[in-house]
């Protein structure tokens, strides 16, 4: 048993789907606790597959994966909830529950992990305040703008105090000003010691922030460097 100090560690990870699509062909990278990184790549390059691997939604065909100290490649199904409580995921399509209000959507994630009513009453308003939604707690997702829904998804990802936040295309359908707002929010969360991995294909955004960028294409890493290095025009 090796001592794990990395937040995320992938080594030679391969993923071939049931229909023989080779989504990942040997991915290796590491995220240290408290790091902020972008994962970029064209459509179909395997970004979402990496996220699904990190939270144990799919199993790798080959390779080692560890997340927050969990050996995800060999994790037992009954341990998955514990892993997922340490990782907050913000999905491309938000995945909010339409029948629940903003407050309930966030509270529900806490309830699902067994928090008490008192803990929920304290924590949810704090998190909604953090993402700037304190005025919209009683609204339903359908009554919110895209950016506001995005922030509900962020609040939900944050509420259980995860060690790692993964955002899949968090700015996918937002205008540049809103996108920057969301990224600023994610950076603020990062400053509170949470590791953040942002998946995106918006070159202008990535260039604006001097952060580490992991670029993949065709299931392989093609560059990994600090300072907003990002030279694939077509993304």
């Amino acid at each position, binding site marked *: 048993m090796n001592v794990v100090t990395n937040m995320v560690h992938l080594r030679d990870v391969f993923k071939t789907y049931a229909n023989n699509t080779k989504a990942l062909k040997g991915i290796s990278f590491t995220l240290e606790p408290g790091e902020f990184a972008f994962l970029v790549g064209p459509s179909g390059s395997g970004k979402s597959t990496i996220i699904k691997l990190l*939270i144990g*939604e799919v199993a790798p065909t080959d390779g080692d994966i560890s997340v927050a100290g969990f050996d995800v490649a060999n994790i037992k199904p009954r341990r*998955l*909830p*514990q*892993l*997922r*409580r340490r990782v907050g*995921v913000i*999905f491309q399509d938000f*995945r909010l*529950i339409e*029948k629940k209000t903003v407050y309930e959507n966030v509270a*529900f*994630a806490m*309830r*699902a*992990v*067994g928090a*008490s*009513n008192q803990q929920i009453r304290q924590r949810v308003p704090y998190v909604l305040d953090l993402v700037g939604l304190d005025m919209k707690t009683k609204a339903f997702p359908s009554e919110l703008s895209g950016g506001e829904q995005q922030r509900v998804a962020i609040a*939900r990802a944050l509420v*259980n105090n995860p060690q790692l936040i993964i955002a899949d295309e968090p700015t996918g359908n937002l205008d540049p000003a809103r996108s920057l707002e969301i990224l600023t929010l994610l950076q603020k969360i990062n400053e509170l010691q949470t590791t953040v991995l942002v998946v995106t294909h918006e070159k202008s955004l990535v260039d604006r922030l001097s952060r580490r960028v992991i670029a993949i294409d065709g299931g392989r890493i093609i560059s990994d460097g600090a300072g907003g290095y990002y030279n694939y025009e077509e993304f």
Partner: protein
Amino acid sequence: MRSFRAGYYIREGLSSIFTHGFMSFASVFIVVACLIIMGSFSLLAVNVNKIIGDFEDENVILAYIHESYSVEDARALAGAIDAVPNVRSARFVTREEAFNSFLSGVEDKSRFEDIDATVLRHRFTVYVDDIAFIERTQEDLLNIPGVARVTANLLIARALVTTRNIVSGVSTVIVAVLLIISLFIMMNTVKLATFERRDEIAIMKVVGATNSFIRWPFIFEGFILGLFGSLVAFITQWGLYTAVTDALLSGGATGGGLIQAISFSQVALSLCVVFAVIGIGVGIIGSSFAIRKYLKV
């Protein structure tokens, strides 16, 4: 903490019943229909059994004792007769008693003035446990030394046994089939509820909810639907049974009170328990099966 959880499961389960109002209604309706059909056949079987039981009491075997036996010797055969399998009880009747009871049924007693009890034999009136084996019992009785002749109404016995076998066989099959049908319907109802909520379930899984946390509201939903269904079925069955038996009794279809239906109060408790067990069982088992596949993410 524990009670709060239970509160959450109950709230979620109840709200799911109302958000899927039509499907909930449909599944309760099916459970009610199945329970009532099951219940009606069971009640029919119970009644047929009771009627046959009544007949059994009247359908006795008469075992006549040899003329050469004295009253004491004849009476002493009681032990041997009681020992025959399937004999429930045997009552000794002397030839005098038999003669007197014969005379009491005759209007013009003067016609029998010159006849006395010696023309008759001492006899045993034998009651059996199960009318189905009456022929066998008859033979066994005949094999007892001292028993001269044995009579029984085999034709009625055979007819009763056949009727009972058909009714209980048909009832068993129908009850089994309906049990499976209602289980499937319940499963599909909860499956629809889970299908509609599969995104919600997927979200729960992704934020780290355990399977049991996700499962309980659905199980509770099945429990409530089943409980409600069995309650409605019980009350409906009550009304239905009372109406049918009343109609049959007043319609004279029972041969002037010769046949008595079992009153509902006699079966109410068992019916209530059986309905509740089946209804709740179908609800819980149905929803457990329905939700299984959504938990494998």
